């Protein structure tokens, strides 16, 4: 079960021709796939396209009705390889993942399918995780398209353009026998809006047709001599076919006016931001009406030389708005103009930053510079002033950063608490991290981790450290990364190479960081997938004998197991499987049930934690060992003490880690757990009555004794 349920939204996928579809960008893409008669869809989740996978997963009944096969691929390479179905058969297929990380993983298969060429339309939908909110290295998907000669679409970020791009993408792919990549930026994936729908189309030629009537063509296999033929085919047939299709169907748009001798060339995905910046600069209105000619590249690869020449011929200078680096489009533009002997000056990274997201402010600044230099007198300034730079500098020191961290009650937290405690005793270790929520361990308050090399690569990231030393290394891997590739690249690799170090596998039952999708080892029942395959069996099957599954909330045992792994004389890989269910998913599942049970009058015991303000001395060691969001600080109620004390707020889910920490780290006696009994039984009431009577009596007596020392007013 994923973090967000789209059960209600997927009903919108049934909307028919002429009706208006309202929703999120990613849901619109799903609808467009169905309208295009897609036969199969695969992919691997990850922001910003996680929701696409979740929507498809929740839409399986609808997909089944249309005869569409949907698969949650093991990783992006598996998803890309799925496109092989379109090589020999007229089957339309789409795959999706987070880019550029997913494209990195997929590129082996991508290069192959691009070499073979396709008969049915093959669409690769990449969620470009670039700019604000991104969690990965800042790179572009663009060169992947260039190197394999895959056509790259970058539509304007409105639902009509995006869904049109899906339709165009399939047609372009079929016309040029080339896979097509559709790039969607983070915000475009999550933009809400509407478009006029069409009917869903059931594929005429089905997957079963292909399986029952296989067709083979040696010319499509990437082996000599076909591989050489493919390269020639790409240059001589597929590329020209693509260029003429793009021109004929006007995939790129000439927007704006025809006046003046300057113009703007923009990636489709940046069009809306550009237009708002132009509006603020007095160059356009809110409807995008402007005198300045604009050439909008909804296809950013390949470039269409005719169109470029036509646009630039009567201009002195053009502004190239291209996000990210290297500036491939700007370079191509210069090449085309140079070959055509055109003297139009291309201004791009000269006035726009080389690195970072192109937000409205960035484009506004760039426009000002460009127009001041090449068409002065056109730009007006009428934006409101914000803070002075002095105030801004001062405020920057006040506003704290908010690094991401583990959720309240997260089962991964105690693993790193244990590691921190072990490091306190034995000194620091080299820790190789992976991708997933567990990577938050490198941030405060844990500050544990040296490197992260990629999804599932936690253990291989430490494989060089396989030599005699007095300390062992610790590697981390999540269950997501484990099934993505870590099983072979990490565990298999370690067994084969006689690694003597430690791997901690965080087994929380889901691919948690990408939105809580199910995995092979998920404990939850999933009607459409096979789950319940334990990680322990998998690693034992690979030949690891030192394997210790540990409940993560048992801090003492986790600590002891880590110490054992670090000190045992037994040679060979040592794997600790840290098990406990992701708290987000658990709460989502249990909370409604619990609330219903309470409503029904059932006896329910709820646990939550608290801190006694008069014994807490405000050292915050507990926070440094936990970092739980529900563990916060408040003013010290004691007028004599100055430092704020710890408090557990009402978000506490009662996971028990606070108490475990107080015990394992010998911290302080301020933590208590409170068991709240809802709908107490008769026995509960009776017992509480007796206890209350005795305790109350003793307390009243003590109160009386204390009253002798009253200062009055009890302030």
């Amino acid at each position, binding site marked *: 079960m994923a973090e967000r349920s789209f059960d209600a939204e997927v009903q919108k996928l049934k909307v028919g021709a002429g009706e208006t579809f309202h929703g999120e960008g990613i849901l619109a893409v799903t609808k467009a796939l169905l309208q295009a008669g897609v036969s199969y869809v695969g992919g691997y989740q990850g922001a910003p396209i996680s929701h696409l996978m979740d929507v498809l997963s929740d839409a399986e009944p609808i997909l089944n009705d249309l005869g569409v096969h949907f698969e949650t691929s093991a990783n992006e390479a598996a998803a890309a390889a799925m496109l092989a179905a379109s090589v020999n058969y007229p089957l339309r297929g789409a795959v999706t993942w987070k880019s550029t990380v997913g494209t990195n993983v997929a590129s082996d298969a991508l290069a192959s399918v691009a070499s073979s060429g396709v008969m049915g339309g093959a669409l690769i939908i990449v969620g470009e995780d670039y700019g604000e909110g991104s969690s990965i290295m800042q790179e572009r998907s663009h060169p992947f398209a260039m190197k394999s000669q895959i056509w790259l679409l970058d539509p304007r970020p409105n639902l009509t353009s995006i869904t049109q791009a899906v339709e165009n993408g399939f047609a372009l792919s079929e016309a040029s026998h080339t896979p097509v990549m559709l790039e969607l930026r983070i915000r475009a994936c999550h933009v809400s809006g509407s478009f006029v729908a069409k009917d869903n189309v059931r594929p005429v030629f089905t997957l079963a047709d292909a399986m029952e009537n296989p067709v083979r063509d040696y010319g499509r296999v990437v082996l000599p001599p076909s591989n050489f033929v493919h390269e020639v085919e790409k240059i001589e047939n597929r590329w020209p076919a693509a260029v003429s299709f793009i021109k004929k169907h006007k995939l790129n748009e000439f927007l704006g006016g025809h006046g003046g001798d300057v113009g703007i060339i923009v990636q489709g995905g940046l069009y809306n931001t550009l237009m708002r910046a132009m509006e603020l600069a007095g160059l356009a209105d809110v409807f995008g009406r402007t005198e300045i000619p604009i050439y909008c590249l909804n296809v950013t690869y390949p470039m269409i030389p005719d169109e470029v020449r036509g646009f630039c011929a009567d201009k002195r200078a053009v502004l190239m708005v291209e996000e990210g680096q290297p500036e491939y489009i700007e370079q191509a533009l210069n090449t085309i103009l140079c070959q055509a002997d055109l003297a139009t000056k291309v201004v791009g990274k000269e006035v726009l930053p080389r690195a970072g997201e192109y937000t409205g402010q960035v484009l506004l600044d760039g426009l000002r510079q460009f127009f001041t230099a090449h068409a002065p007198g056109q730009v007006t300034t009428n934006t409101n002033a914000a*803070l002075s730079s002095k105030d801004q500098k001062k405020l920057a020191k006040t506003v704290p950063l908010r690094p991401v961290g583990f959720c309240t009650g997260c089962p991964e937290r105690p693993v790193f608490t244990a590691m921190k405690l072990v490091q306190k005793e034995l000194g620091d270790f080299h820790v190789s991290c992976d991708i997933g929520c567990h990577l938050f361990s490198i941030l405060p308050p844990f500050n544990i981790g040296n490197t992260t090399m990629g999804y599932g690569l936690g253990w291989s990231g430490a494989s060089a450290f396989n030599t005699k030393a007095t300390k062992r290394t610790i590697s981390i891997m999540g269950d997501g990364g484990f099934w993505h590739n870590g099983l072979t690249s990490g565990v298999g690799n370690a067994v084969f190479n006689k690694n003597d170090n430690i791997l901690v596998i965080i087994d929380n039952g889901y691919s948690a960081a990408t939105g809580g999708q199910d995995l092979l080892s998920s404990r939850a029942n999933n009607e459409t997938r096979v789950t319940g395959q334990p990680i322990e069996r998998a690693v034992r099957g690979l030949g690891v004998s030192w394997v210790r599954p540990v409940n993560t909330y048992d801090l003492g045992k986790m600590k002891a197991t880590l110490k054992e792994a670090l000190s045992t004389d037994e040679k060979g890989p040592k794997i600790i499987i840290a098990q406990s269910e992701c708290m987000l998913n658990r709460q989502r599942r249990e909370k409604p049930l619990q609330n219903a049970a309470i409503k029904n009058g059932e006896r329910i015991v709820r646990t939550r934690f608290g801190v006694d303000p008069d014994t807490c001395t405000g050292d915050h060691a507990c926070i440094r060992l936990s970092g739980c969001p529900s563990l916060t600080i408040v003013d010290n109620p004691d007028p004599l003490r100055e430092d704020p004390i710890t408090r557990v707020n009402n978000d506490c889910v009662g996971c028990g880690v606070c108490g475990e920490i107080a015990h394992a780290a010998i911290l302080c006696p301020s933590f208590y757990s409170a068991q709240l009994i809802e709908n107490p039984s008769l026995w509960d009431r009776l017992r509480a009555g007796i206890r209350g009577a005795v305790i109350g009596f003793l307390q009243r007596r003590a109160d009386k004794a204390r009253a002798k020392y009253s200062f009055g007013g009890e302030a």
Partner: protein
Amino acid sequence: MNPVRPITIAITAMGGQGGGVLAGWIIALAEAEGYIAQSTSVPGVAQRTGATIYYVELFAKVSAQKAGQDPVLTLTPIPGDVDIVIASEMMEAGRALLRGFVTAKTTLIASDHRVFAISEKEPMGDGRQNPEHVRKLARATAGQFISFDMEQTANDAHSIISSVLFGALAGSGKLPFPRKAFENTIKASNKAVEANLRGFGMGFDKAASYDVPSQKPQEVKITPAPLIAPLLQRLHDEFPKAVHDTLVHGLKRCVDFQDVRYGALYLDRMAAIHELDQVNNGKDKKWHLTRDLGRYLALKMSFEDTIRVADLKTRSSRLARLRNDVAAKKDQIVSVTEFMHPRIEELCDVLPAPLGRYLSRHEKLKAGLGQFFKKGRRVETTSLRGFLFLSVLAALKPLRRLSLRYSIETGRIESWLNAITNAAPVNYALACEIAGLQRLIKGYGDTHERGLRNYTTIMAALETFQAKPDAHKYLKKLKDAALLDEDGLALQKAVQHLQKRRTS
């Protein structure tokens, strides 16, 4: 140019705080009221407690029809072009200011409560940033600034902060939609409608009648018990008025810790210090030394031994406070379990001093008994067994003066007071700084030992530079360094740095 422009709204929030719910409501509201609405967000890891922005643009359909064209709506807020900023927390309002979203055209709706960042919670002292800085700039910059503790309002309404923010947005009058339309949006969402409408209503009222709240402290009439009255009388007679408040708190704490005699001891010690203060012109310094020591001596004299903890844990006032802290409803039975980890050291502490001292030095015996103190203990205070166990410990209070811990603490207090007494005539500020070193020693077990270790390190270092005229500055530097990291690395460095400077 066409003057018709979209309404731009930025919601700055922390992941998982309901910014998405609020954005969804605004979209639904606007669409129902004949507007074209677009929202974007950046989910992903930011959702896990990081700061994040939801951005919404609204455009009247009528204007689009008139123009015969749809507007081009954008996906990121542009500094200087945001009409409404909704911040679900004060520092997030600060972040919006920092990013230039708040200008004279902006209505800033911000909840005046704090969710502390890890960098504010983590330090061993007080790492909190001052929100007053944000408030001041917000007032000066925003065209309209609506701010009250919306989290508290949400709690009062048994609702979520999103509903209060939505109410405040309606109350601001900045959106061209009637109150009814806002309420219909909540009703149509079909989720916790009643609670959300309640939160909405309270948010609306507070925003519509927004005024800067004023707080006046209430005077409390004080009638002390007969046993206490003479102590208070003595305090009033012997000490200047400027330090009365602090000393009353200190006295109260010492009496509460032990008994009236202990309170008198506190006053005796304070009297000596006050005399010292007088001799050294403390009056000109507003009795700085007396006031500081009034605070720190009381804290030092009321050390956290097992007896104290057991006493505090079994008080009647505690259970009442605790029920409130865990938000227990009236008919709920609450049972409480303590997490305690007494070590053999804590046992030695409560034993009579000679016996405790013998045991703490007898390694073999200590190791043997240590077996019983290896594991943390859970004590259920609400059970008869647990309560009686703690009560018995608390009942040792009259015998405390015989305990090893008492004898150790008395020694520590006296040598600390000595150091202050010696420093004051030479360097008044240094004496105050030494008094302030008490702040380093807090907590239990390892935490307490770490504090003591730092204190000892600093006092040893002090001997090497106490003759210098600006010794107090050095001491303050060392104290700050001691609060920087748990392992004492910064302190070690600072001490080495001082020694290097002295030798070179």
